[in-house]
């Protein structure tokens, strides 16, 4: 164990030393912690804490935490998981250090990684207070629940792979159990909603049913978080015990199998290492290492020349890796829009909110999601390859065309998403195209913010620093557009609700103008190949 404690302590010590050498990153961490501390202090700027929004929080936990947990386990069944680095494989696995001790070291390392990933959640502390009416204890509960979900997903994923990988029948059984659980959850929800007469409130009520707290994994973490929020400590500790017991049993199994788990983590560790190395070297096949991509028909789609070749190349890649022009994030957006459509249908039918508010609400919600999904688009990958710097065309044109596929993707998913909401919630017909085009141009604006972030900070920064800068530039660039949109909405809606379309038209104009302006100002990014 001496070697492992030396490794851990020296790594942490050097991490801090390295942090001191990069003041930008240090400031970001200090700001994050300060912001978190500040947000924990109750303030009159936030609404008073209450349990009114607890059902929404619960539904959110089932959706987001459930997705992380079950998709993590599903990945574990297919290809395994790892919390080891390639250096561990080369130097630790081959050393006389006991395999069980190495496993413990890996879990501790994973907890550290998850802790850093939890820092991202701190950006949402204001939203937790404003939208979910959480108090300090509630925020702590949610942050802790998120952290536990990240750690335990990895451990369960690895254990499941170790347990099933050498035995195809076990793997099949594991899949049946996992899909069975998801089926019970989704089927149960549908049946309950139908029995309750299709009321949107019944969706929220379903997750609050007492026995749901004991539904494997997701119910336990929900029970832990909500138990802590409402002060039901018996439920909190019981659910925490169940949630932690599950991976502990997994670890016991892996320990019993002695060093055989080495093979289980080897493939994923190698893949992750190769992917990172390929991305560092700017190899165009970087993404393909992780994805099971088949070439299919050969040849660049369309007839692009010069800068537009980037767009057609993206279309060709998209055909191989995505769902036509769309990708997995589009599915998330479309599923959310369907849920929103059903909820808004009932809310507008019962006159709880106006059609106008339903439209605005869905547009703001999906645009907010897009803000996060656009942050690391194709553009960032393009910058790591030499071609964008070398092709003889204007920088603005290259920036535009290398991002066009993302904009087209957003337009298609926007038309489907807002089309569904328009149909379900009975919104005016103009809403779907107007919102979809605004949404697509907004994606272009988000990309330009990403360009600005890269331009100001340069490359090779931590994700956290980039995210912070992206948020900051978002406030500055989006601000005037949001103000313009809100004013025009208010003014024209009062004259005639259908005239609110003018606000969307103005937003489209602003988005296009601002994105081109930012791209123009940031065009120098293509003159510095070291970014």
């Amino acid at each position: 164990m001496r070697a492992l404690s030396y490794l851990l302590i020296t790594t942490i010590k050097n991490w801090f030393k390295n942090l001191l050498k990069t003041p930008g990153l240090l400031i970001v961490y200090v700001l994050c912690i300060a912001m978190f501390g500040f947000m924990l202090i109750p303030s009159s700027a936030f609404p008073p804490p209450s349990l009114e929004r607890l059902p929404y929080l619960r539904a959110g936990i089932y959706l987001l935490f459930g997705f992380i947990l079950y998709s993590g386990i599903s990945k574990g069944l297919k290809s395994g998981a790892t919390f080891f680095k390639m250096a561990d494989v080369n130097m630790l696995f081959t050393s006389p250090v006991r395999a069980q001790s190495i496993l413990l070291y890996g879990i501790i390392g994973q907890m550290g990684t998850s802790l850093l990933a939890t820092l991202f959640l701190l950006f949402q502390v204001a939203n937790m207070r404003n939208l979910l009416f959480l108090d300090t204890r509630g925020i702590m509960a949610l942050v802790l629940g998120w952290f536990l979900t990240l750690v335990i997903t990895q451990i369960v994923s690895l254990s499941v792979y170790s347990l099933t990988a050498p035995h195809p029948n076990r793997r099949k059984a594991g899949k049946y159990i996992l899909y069975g659980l998801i089926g019970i959850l989704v089927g149960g929800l549908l049946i309950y909603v139908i029995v309750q007469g299709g009321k949107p409130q019944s969706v929220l009520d379903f997750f609050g049913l007492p026995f749901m707290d004991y539904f494997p994994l997701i119910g336990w973490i929900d029970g832990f978080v909500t138990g802590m929020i409402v002060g039901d400590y018996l439920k909190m500790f019981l659910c925490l015990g169940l949630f932690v017991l599950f991976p502990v049993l997994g670890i016991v199994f892996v320990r019993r199998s002695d060093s055989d788990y080495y093979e289980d983590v080897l493939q994923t560790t190698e893949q992750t290492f190769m992917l990172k190395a390929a991305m560092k070297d700017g190899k165009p096949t970087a993404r393909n290492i992780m994805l099971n991509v088949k070439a299919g028909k050969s040849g660049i789609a369309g007839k692009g020349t010069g800068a537009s070749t980037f767009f057609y190349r993206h279309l060709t890649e998209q055909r191989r890796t995505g769902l036509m022009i769309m990708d997995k994030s589009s599915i998330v957006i479309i599923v959310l829009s369907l849920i929103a459509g059903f909820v808004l249908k009932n809310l507008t039918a019962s006159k709880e909110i106006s059609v106008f508010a339903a439209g605005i609400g869905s547009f703001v919600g999906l645009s907010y999601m897009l803000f996060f999904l656009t942050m690391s688009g194709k553009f960032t990958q393009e910058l790591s390859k030499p071609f964008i710097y070398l092709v003889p065309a204007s920088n603005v044109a290259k920036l535009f065309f290398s991002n066009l596929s993302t904009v087209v993707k957003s337009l298609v998913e926007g038309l489907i998403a807002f089309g569904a909401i328009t149909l379900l919630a009975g919104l005016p017909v103009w809403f779907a195209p107007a919102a979809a085009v605004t949404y697509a141009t907004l994606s272009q604006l988000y990309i330009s913010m990403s360009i600005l972030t890269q331009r100001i900070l340069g490359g090779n920064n931590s994700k956290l620093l980039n995210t912070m800068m992206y948020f900051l530039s978002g406030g500055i660039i989006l601000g005037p557009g949001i103000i313009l949109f809100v004013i025009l909405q208010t003014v024209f809606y009062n004259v005639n609700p259908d005239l609110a379309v003018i606000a969307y038209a103005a937003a489209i104009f602003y988005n296009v103008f601002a994105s081109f302006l930012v791209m123009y100002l940031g065009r120098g990014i293509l003159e510095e190949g070291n970014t």
Partner: protein
Amino acid sequence: MLEVKNLTKKYSSTLANDDLNFSLKGGEIGILLGPNGAGKSTAIKCIMGLLRFSGTILIDGQANKSEEAKRNMGYVPEIPALYELLTVEEHAEFIIRAYKLDKSAYAYADELMERLELADKKKKLGKELSKGMQQKVSIMCALLPRPKMLLLDEPLVGLDPHAIKELKSMLLEARDAGTAIFVSTHMIESVEEIWDQAFIMVNGKIVAARSREEEAEHGDDSLEDLFFSITEGEK
């Protein structure tokens, strides 16, 4: 020192290693030759205890996955990967602790760093080193415990001419000190002058084995000729 009996490794439907049998004595350098995808790295990983397999692998009479066997093994992987946040000298410190080496290992670490031209990079973090330098640190870590059995997977890739020369001389010194050395490579000419036993692997099987004595008997028909006659005959 190394005994491999009926080693078979299967990945779902792919047979990566098919009933391999070979052995290597202490003080011998064995080379494993084969085209890309022949199964060389899989065999090395099985010997190093990184993969499940059927068959028996013994290191100095001990099962290869046992702690005793690992104490006697050194490994230079195909792709060097260091701890990004550990300096070069901290890598040495880590190995000394992991293998529970005595105090004399510190002096030996200094000697290895000197010979591999790492002395002026002692305080550099793993992530600050070039690939060639990382390879040198991997070699230092493998040699530091003075293993009885040393496995090297394509060790010469990425090294500069000086490092190649130094590594060869280190391997010969280790051999003379009684270490069994097993090198997987597809660069025959680079190991031409140092091998004692050669195994040629194609499609997961060892299709030919030759000792240095046999090589002498074959006269003009060199190992390289044998390799090409086998691998090109396969096409």
